[in-house]
């Protein structure tokens, strides 16, 4: 039996990290994710780990890079403006193929914005965010349980691909309290450790770098990275709710998908055939799932807590195979199930 605890979303992430074997945490305080470093500060020393509050987000991601280069599991967390500061380090980690988990419990922007929930960091998370031609895997939980489960998953994926993995939540997912089933962690699989820096005792010296100046060397490196990003496609995850007979499919992720699920039930009660596809990995994006759905419905409504970001991926996935409508709420307000239900109803009318 799994051990169940009532915790908030941020704590669930920290618990997931420790259960995944994360033993080092470097971070810098920013609302609304402070319970993550606070939990780590209290609990990592008890399991022989290291918590260090860095002088900045920039320093903390670089500490993550240094520690991860030695083969240990390490994490940082922050919220939107802090994640912007970490982007340089994330790009270097991707370039040097160093794993690590970066949690973004996003808030509203641009700029200092506010501390209320938003999905305005979708582009930043899914397009690499930093400089250069790279990708990060992006996991988007929609419940406290998933905060825990997907954080554990993030560590496995980071190791598997030697790549930074982003867990993208928001202020709602950080603050809500729900029971979480703590599953006994599986023993960590031994990954290819031929790259890890431990001092060159009994072996040749190793180097982790992202600078490639010789003729053609960088092109080769980037093609190799590209192939790796293509392989990541098999990690795609999504949830499908009542899509079998759906006349219209709502596409939403994270906390908004959670609200949309209630709206969906309201619509079903009124006899409207509404389904939902919830991308759990934002990169790789569940393109194939949407294409398959376009085989039986031609209407999609994308709902986001921003002015339209994921909708571009939905349109790219579907091309001209279906009608795509968008309903967005810019940061600063959270839609209610009633409001989403009305929007779904209106969109259905327009589309028919």
């Amino acid at each position, binding site marked *: 039996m799994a051990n169940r605890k009532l915790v908030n979303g941020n704590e669930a992430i920290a618990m997931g990290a420790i259960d995944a074997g994360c033993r*080092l945490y470097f971070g810098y305080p920013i609302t609304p994710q402070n319970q993550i470093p606070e939990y780590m500060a209290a609990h990592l020393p008890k399991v022989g780990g290291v918590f260090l509050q860095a002088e900045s987000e920039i*320093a903390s991601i*670089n500490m993550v890079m240094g520690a991860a*280069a030695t083969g240990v599991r390490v994490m940082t967390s922050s919220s939107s403006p802090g994640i912007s500061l970490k982007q340089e380090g994330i790009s270097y980690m991707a370039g040097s193929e160093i794993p690590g988990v970066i949690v973004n419990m996003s808030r509203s922007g641009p700029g200092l914005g506010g501390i209320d929930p938003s999905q305005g960091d979708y582009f930043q998370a899914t397009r690499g965010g930093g400089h250069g031609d790279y990708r990060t895997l992006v996991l988007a939980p929609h419940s406290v349980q998933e905060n825990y489960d997907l954080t554990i998953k993030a560590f496995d994926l980071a190791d598997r691909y030697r790549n930074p993995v982003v867990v993208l939540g928001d202020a709602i997912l950080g603050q809500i309290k729900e029971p979480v089933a703590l599953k006994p962690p599986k023993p960590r699989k031994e990954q290819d450790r031929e790259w890890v820096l431990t001092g060159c005792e*009994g072996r040749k*010296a190793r180097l982790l770098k992202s600078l490639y100046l010789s003729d053609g060397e960088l092109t080769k490196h980037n093609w190799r990275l590209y192939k790796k990003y293509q392989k990541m496609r098999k990690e795609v995850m999504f949830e499908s709710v009542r899509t079998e007979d759906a006349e219209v499919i709502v596409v939403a992720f994270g906390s908004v998908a959670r609200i949309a699920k209630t709206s969906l039930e309201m619509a079903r009660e009124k006899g409207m055939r509404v389904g939902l596809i919830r991308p759990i990995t934002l990169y790789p994006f569940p393109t194939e799932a949407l294409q398959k759905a376009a085989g039986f419905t031609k209407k999609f409504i994308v709902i986001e807590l921003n002015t339209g970001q994921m909708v571009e991926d939905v349109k790219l996935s579907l091309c001209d195979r279906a009608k795509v409508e968008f309903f967005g709420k810019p940061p600063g307000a959270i839609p209610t199930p009633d409001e989403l239900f009305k929007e779904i109803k209106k969109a259905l009318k327009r589309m028919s």
Partner: protein
Amino acid sequence: MKQVFKRPTSLIDVPFHFCPGCHHGIIHRLVAEAIDRYDLREKTIGVASVGCSVFMYDYFDTDVLEAPHGRAAAVATGVKRARPRNFVFTYQGDGDLAAIGTAEIMHAANRGERITVVFVNNTTYGMTGGQMAPTTMPGQTTTTSPYGRSTEDAGYPIKMSEIMAQLGGVAYAARVSVHDPKHLMKAKKALNRAFECQLNREGLGFVEFLSACPTNWKMSPLKANRHVADVMVPCFPLGVFKDAASTEKD
């Protein structure tokens, strides 16, 4: 026949890429000698910075990790916290450590990270073509201070060793030069002491090397060497600014 002088084991036997008269080669050698002296080659993880020194991984026969510009001290913090038994050093230039990476070095120093910092001060950005650095001396001409550094507009050369000496976590801070054998021997001694600070878990060890950059200074190697002694040393006084061991004795 007895061999009395040889290449340090920790240095790979390849020619340096550095410009003629540049001191990086000498400083590389001194660092490698210290690694050998304490038998650390198989325990060392070096952190390369951005600038002329980034290619240290082509020369040091140790594990090396490349840090983003200025972030070497933070990267080294992560390495050392994860692997406290490894020997960890950063090798950074003045643009890297004293400009873009000021926050990282100050806080790593203040936390007393058990790392050794090799700081090479040649008063200019070497790799990018000789722009003004925070260490550029008053009146010094660079590509971005074409009329000479004006203290009114651009402030004063920053003196990192003196700043480091003020921070609680620093066990040792010294400024040395390698422009002649006498000073080179002193530099060697300082570096050894900075290594010991890490090995004895005393705190952060910091050694600032005054270094020539003949190419960007537009001087012959010989003239650049003399410039270090005659112009740089009066601006950046040599010496030990802090030594936890002697402080304790006091």
